[in-house]
């Protein structure tokens, strides 16, 4: 650092002539005084032996000798700093490189330490680069981001991440559920009809030759030959080792998913904080750093200009709305809030109607399945089976646009509208899934009434659902398949025809109706919904993550193809940092919600007597205390200690204290930052004042 300042003083000394003309004019001006400040000088520093930026050239470029450059350069750099990163002009760099090469040849090998340090740094950079390249589809994602915007890119990035989660889950499932099954010999075949169990009989007569429609029907609903296959829970034999690993695999998958999602959402939070902390500089950032200087081609330039225009207009509009909200009288406030209350009640009513509809449809399914006419025609049977899914799909299709309309009437700013719409749609999607599960629970446990006629003997409704876990698995399997089929159908029957049809239509109408954009929030919520279904179903249908991997892989290529063939680039920006954080939060919510039915089934519902690895026990969890009691004494004591209050309460206390401490720390940092900002402002004012005084004094001196 000292070298630099001496160099600078030399440089400034040699360029005294720079100030001379101004002085001659009549006292140094304010700007020239400010230019002499050290901070400005560092900024303008250009390299060894060169005048700083902005100084007038006194001599010709050619007049400067290479030797002068080299000397100045050597004087400055004592260590082998990467001189590529220093802001030197071309001539200085050439001179340095020549002299450096000469030195290297003269002195032979450099010191070992510097050599190894350089090698280490380079190999670390290379490894980081390689890891980044290992991620599949990196180039595709970059291309999508460049062409369609950051929001679309974040959708595909989320899809890739969920694919990773599913691959890991299927690997865990295969290792902990499938392998132990075949380890101790082949599992038995489907049960025969006459069994003397008090809990009824589980009939899975293997039909010899089935008709083709029935085969398709079996494939799509998980019945028939699929019902007694590794796909569903019922197939697995009651072996103790298998039972333990089966149960543990659920917790392992949950833990892995949690551990992978949390760091990703934390980094998303950091990005959001960084972007949102510029609330005080949003306009200046939009004006000065929004323009991408690397854009080429009229189309892209036009698009970028449109995006900047849209962003500025949105900001101005939000400012207007906020200004209007600030000057509202009490009467107007009351009116606005009563309107909001009414609209919220309307939203709640719509959601309630949707959920009741789902519940009713599930009940209707069971009734309709009893009718003989339905049992004879396979197509009707399929339709009735998929009735709840159809209902959920219909509700998810119709209600979000209604929410968009309602949000517009509420008088919030646009960004708040988007958040509200997102929240409501998320609630709709996840809650309809929960209602489906609730109606299933109702059927399985006779409405939670253990003393009811049907549930008294075995604890669950053995007459209608001899193997209830397989039934739940089948429902989740159907939901997953239905999701895939509707995605395909929408793409083939709506998006492509619309593009083709309106592409042929001439004029503005055709262009307006034919431009489709990739609706990022809807698509991301669809992904999260699909993943929640898989998380719920992976306990009851062990191969579901594997099927989901295939589905997501297909979905990736399908969506990419649809994107590039039918969609135009987004005309509205979606801040990628907010998107990433909010959607990962919703994914965590989905994980938490999916844990509820699984944990409830494990702890509270008695397992089926006729199928599965847990048959004959009072609850699925009852296996764990039994297996713990077979472990050595010390392990038993340790594990039982973990379950007592003496461990849980101090743990809770310590976590609360840590959390309170972190919150207090964050608060104090925030206060420190605002104090420092205030200090910077004051310092700037001081500096300007002093410079003005200096100018005034020197002109006074000159006058005297």
């Amino acid at each position, binding site marked *: 650092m000292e070298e630099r300042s001496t160099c600078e003083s030399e440089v400034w000394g040699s360029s005294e002539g720079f100030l001379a003309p101004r002085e001659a004019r009549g006292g140094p001006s304010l700007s020239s005084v400010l230019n002499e400040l050290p901070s400005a000088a560092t900024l303008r520093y250009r390299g060894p032996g060169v005048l700083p930026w902005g100084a007038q050239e006194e001599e010709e470029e050619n007049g400067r000798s290479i030797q002068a450059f080299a000397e100045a350069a050597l004087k400055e750099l004592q260590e082998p700093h990467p001189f*590529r990163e220093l802001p030197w*002009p071309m001539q200085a760099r050439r001179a340095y490189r020549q002299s450096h090469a000469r030195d290297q040849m003269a002195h032979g090998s450099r010191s070992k330490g510097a050599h190894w340090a350089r090698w280490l740094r380079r190999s670390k950079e290379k490894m980081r680069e390689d890891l980044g390249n290992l991620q599949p589809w990196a180039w595709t994602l970059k291309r999508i981001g460049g062409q369609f915007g950051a929001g679309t890119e974040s959708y595909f990035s989320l899809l890739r991440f969920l694919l990773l989660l599913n691959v890991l889950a299927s690997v865990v499932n295969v290792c902990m559920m499938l392998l132990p099954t075949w380890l101790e010999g082949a599992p038995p075949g489907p049960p025969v009809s006459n069994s003397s169990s008090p809990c009824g009989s589980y009939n899975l007569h293997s039909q010899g030759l089935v008709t083709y429609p029935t085969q398709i029907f079996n494939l799509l609903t998980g019945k028939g030959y699929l019902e007694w296959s590794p796909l569903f829970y019922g197939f697995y034999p009651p072996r103790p080792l298998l039972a333990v690993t089966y149960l543990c695999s659920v917790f392992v998958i949950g833990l892995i998913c949690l551990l992978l999602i949390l760091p990703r959402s934390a980094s998303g939070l950091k990005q959001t904080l960084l972007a949102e902390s510029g609330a005080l*500089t949003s306009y200046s950032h939009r004006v000065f750093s929004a323009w991408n*200087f690397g854009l080429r081609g009229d189309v892209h330039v036009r698009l970028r200009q449109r995006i900047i225009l849209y962003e500025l207009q949105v900001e101005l509009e939000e400012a207007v709305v906020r200004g209007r909200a600030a000057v509202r009288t009490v009467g107007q406030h009351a009116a606005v809030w009563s309107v909001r209350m009414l609209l919220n009640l309307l939203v709640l009513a719509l959601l309630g109607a949707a959920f009741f509809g789902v519940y009713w449809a599930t009940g209707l399914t069971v009734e309709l399945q009893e009718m003989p006419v339905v049992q004879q025609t396979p197509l009707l049977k399929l339709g009735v089976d998929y009735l709840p899914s159809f209902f959920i799909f219909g509700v998810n299709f119709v209600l979000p646009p209604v929410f968009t309309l309602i949000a517009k009437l509420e008088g919030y700013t646009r960004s708040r509208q988007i958040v509200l719409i997102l929240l409501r749609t998320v609630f709709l999607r996840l809650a309809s899934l929960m209602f489906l599960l609730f109606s299933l629970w109702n059927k399985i446990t006779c409405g939670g009434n253990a003393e009811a006629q049907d549930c008294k003997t075995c604890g669950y409704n053995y007459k209608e659902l001899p193997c209830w876990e397989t039934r739940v698995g089948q429902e989740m399997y159907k939901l997953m398949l239905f999701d895939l089929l509707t995605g395909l159908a929408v793409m083939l029957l709506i998006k492509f025809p619309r593009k083709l049809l309106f592409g042929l239509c001439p004029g503005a109408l055709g262009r307006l109706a034919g431009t489709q954009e990739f609706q990022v929030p809807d698509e991301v919520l669809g992904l999260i919904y699909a993943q929640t279904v898989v998380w719920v179903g992976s306990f009851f249908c062990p191969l579901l993550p594997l099927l989901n991997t295939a589905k997501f892989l297909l979905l990736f290529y399908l969506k990419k193809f649809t994107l590039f063939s039918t969609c135009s680039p987004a005309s509205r920006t979606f801040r990628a940092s907010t998107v990433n954080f909010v959607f990962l939060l919703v994914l965590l919510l989905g994980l938490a919600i999916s844990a509820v039915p699984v944990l409830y089934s494990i702890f509270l519902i008695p397992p089926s007597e006729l199928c599965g690895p847990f048959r004959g026990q009072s609850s699925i969890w009852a296996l764990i205390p039994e297996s713990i009691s077979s472990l050595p004494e010390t392990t038993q004591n340790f594990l039982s200690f973990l379950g007592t209050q003496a461990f849980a309460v101090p743990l809770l206390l310590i976590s609360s204290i840590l959390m309170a401490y972190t919150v207090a720390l964050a608060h104090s940092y925030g206060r420190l930052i605002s104090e420092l900002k205030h200090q910077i402002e004051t310092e700037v004012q001081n500096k300007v004042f002093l410079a003005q005084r200096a100018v005034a004094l020197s002109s006074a001196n000159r006058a005297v």
Partner: protein
Amino acid sequence: MGNKQTVFTPEQLEAYQDNPFRQRIAQVFSEDGDGHMTLDNFLDMFSVMSETAPRDLKAYYAFKIYDFNDDDYICAWDLEQTLTKLTRGELSAEEVSLVCEKVLDEADGDHDGRLSLEDFQNMILRAPDFLSTFHIRI
């Protein structure tokens, strides 16, 4: 670039960019401020606009590019010019003046009604994507 010229006219450089700031870039990086660049100026331009140029240097050059009247300050007129180029003149005059006012409110540290280099630098240091947008890839 094919021919063996050592001086490129602004028209020749225009063919390689559709950037609305192309004239300003050429003027700022050229020897005598009239848009004619020698090879060394050209290399300096790409050096500043490359990925590894330090932030302070880019901030200095961004300041010079946005300073349309070359008076070492970004005044309201410069801001209006910048906005017009950014939005291809599709913002109304009222909106333009509103945005200029807000920018000066946010960034003007010494409250003299225009942005000096220090104000600009302080403001742009907090922009997370400045380094990636002030960047030309060859």
